[in-house]
């Protein structure tokens, strides 16, 4: 079967036939192990359950779960049923979750009980949500052997499989629509570039994030490898990190620069065997040469840098074991073309700085219900990343900064507008501007400048922070809040962020 005609349901079926009894999934928290066949059966069970509930092709299924067997069962099961999965970040607050459920027209939400109780309070009149499915309801049938229901629709490679919300959770949701072929093509290219084969990858990143789904699960599924799934929200996951590598004989780990920094800070009384570990993939935020060098020297382990964005499914450029040019984000993937362009979209010369543009099978279908935004970012087939970069004579790409307004804290994208909307809602705040500031651990952190309303002299940064903590994920809350007399603006009213003193 030509790869271009394959869909996620066929892929799961084909890999179950190819690798049947080979172990595919290890869940660290419970010690459970699933073979390729069992993983395929699990997805069929959940797909059948959803089809019986009346889910039809194109329906949106929200998945609000931490890293777990249930997350993957829900994810692959819903996709097999022809539905479009909407993964949600478990650290979001109820209001943000509701915003995404409403915007995505989610018909089903799969989650755990405490969250569902909050969702039940949402306004039903504007919601299409018909079914709330508890994670343990998936558990009931996970290991039963089933054949696919006759109700299963025919799925095409260009059909949407996922909507990943990247920003705008507070007011202007931005959902990236990715097709079956986007996912398969990108995961295949990553596996090929890394020569992944039967390697075992340890997933320490959250599964609601594209890196968790594509690099950590789909690429090894395609290559015949296996996954050790860790609970990304378990506070003790880092201290047990090296022990898990030894226990599961892990070959590859995908992480963000912040985790490298954290691991460098930890010391151990005993020497752990890292013989199985071939390399570490690092992405989602800029990796400094110094951090890469320090990590490689201390742990005698290669760090390979990749680059990508959700609008390009996951990865667009990557280094490899044989061609690892430190400081660069690597070469374009097989199905990708990269162009460094000036403001007019014209390609600049080698070594010159311009915006990184991407073209290829991994470029998203568009933003859900937002053709206006899609047309701003995909122009003549080229995805405008908003990142500044250059290439060298060998075609390696280097990232040098950002054009767009975004803060990358520990690999997580934080959009200032989301925070400004929330902080601006404080009854004492007249104006608010949020910027990124350099941070030794997280790469970047959040700083908010606030102008108070007249007469609000008793309001302190701590009051504002408490307000933020009640309405935003803790990780997004500003590290510093400064109360200022005015926000510098241009004549047209645009904030002059460089005039703010970080």
């Amino acid at each position, binding site marked *: 079967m030509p790869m271009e005609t394959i869909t996620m349901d066929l892929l799961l079926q084909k890999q179950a036939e190819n690798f049947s009894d080979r172990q595919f999934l290890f869940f660290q928290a419970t010690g459970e192990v699933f073979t390729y066949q069992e993983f395929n059966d699990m997805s069929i069970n959940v797909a059948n359950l959803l089809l019986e509930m009346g889910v039809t092709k194109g329906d949106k299924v929200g998945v609000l779960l931490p890293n777990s067997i249930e997350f993957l069962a829900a994810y692959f099961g819903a996709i097999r049923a022809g539905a479009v999965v909407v993964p949600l970040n478990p650290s979001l607050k109820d209001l943000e979750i509701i915003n995404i459920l409403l915007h995505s027209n989610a018909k089903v939400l799969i989650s755990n009980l405490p969250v569902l109780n909050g969702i039940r309070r949402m306004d039903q009149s504007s919601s299409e949500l018909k079914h709330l499915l508890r994670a343990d309801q998936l558990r009931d049938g996970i290991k039963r052997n089933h054949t696919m229901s006759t109700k299963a629709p025919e799925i095409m490679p260009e059909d949407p499989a996922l909507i990943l919300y990247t920003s705008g959770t507070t007011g202007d949701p931005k959902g990236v629509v990715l097709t079956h072929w986007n996912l398969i093509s990108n995961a295949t290219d990553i596996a090929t570039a890394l020569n992944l084969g039967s390697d075992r990858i340890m997933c320490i990143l959250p599964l609601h994030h594209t890196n968790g789904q594509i690099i950590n699960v789909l690429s090894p599924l395609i290559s015949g490898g296996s996954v050790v799934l860790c609970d990304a*929200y*378990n*506070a*003790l996951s880092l201290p047990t990190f090296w022990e898990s590598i030894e226990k599961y004989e892990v070959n590859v780990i995908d992480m963000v620069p912040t985790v490298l920094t*954290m691991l460098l800070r*930890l*010391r*151990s009384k*005993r020497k752990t065997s890292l013989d199985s570990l071939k390399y570490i993939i690092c992405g989602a935020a800029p990796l400094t040469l110094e951090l890469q060098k320090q990590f490689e020297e201390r742990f005698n382990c290669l760090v390979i840098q990749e680059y990508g964005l959700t609008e390009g499914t996951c990865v667009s450029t990557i280094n490899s074991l044989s061609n690892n040019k430190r400081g660069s984000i690597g070469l374009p993937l097989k199905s990708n073309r990269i162009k460094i362009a000036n403001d007019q979209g014209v390609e600049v010369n080698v070594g010159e700085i311009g915006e990184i543009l991407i073209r290829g099978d991994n470029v998203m279908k568009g933003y859900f219900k937002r053709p206006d935004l899609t047309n701003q970012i995909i122009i003549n087939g080229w995805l405008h990343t908003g990142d500044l970069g250059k290439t060298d004579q060998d075609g390696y790409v280097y990232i040098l900064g950002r054009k767009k307004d975004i803060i990358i804290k520990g690999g997580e994208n934080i959009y200032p507008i989301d925070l400004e909307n929330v902080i601006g809602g404080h009854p004492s705040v007249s104006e608010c501007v949020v910027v990124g500031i350099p941070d030794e*651990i997280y790469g970047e952190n959040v700083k908010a400048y606030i102008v108070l309303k007249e007469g609000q002299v008793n309001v302190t940064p701590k009051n504002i922070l408490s307000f933020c903590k009640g309405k935003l994920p803790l990780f997004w809350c500003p590290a510093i809040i400064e109360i200022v007399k005015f926000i510098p603006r241009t004549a047209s009213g645009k904030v002059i962020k460089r005039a703010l003193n970080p």
Partner: protein
Amino acid sequence: MVISRSESIKMQLREQLSDKELDDTVDLFESQMLDSLSLIELVTFLEEKFAIEVFIEDITKENFRSLNTIADYVNTKLEENISSI
């Protein structure tokens, strides 16, 4: 007023965790006060503030569950430091 070393440690921990009202016995994991990154930040804080060495093997639920258990742990480490002089 003289406060004990344990009380002093707990006061500094409250400051670090940005919650001056935090109860001594609240489970920091269950209440999601600590995630994987903030736990390491806390470890770094303890090492710098109290001049102790915290090893991976010591970063357990038992030692880091609450302000009380962390204070006990820091006290033990400080006693070890004194006895090794």
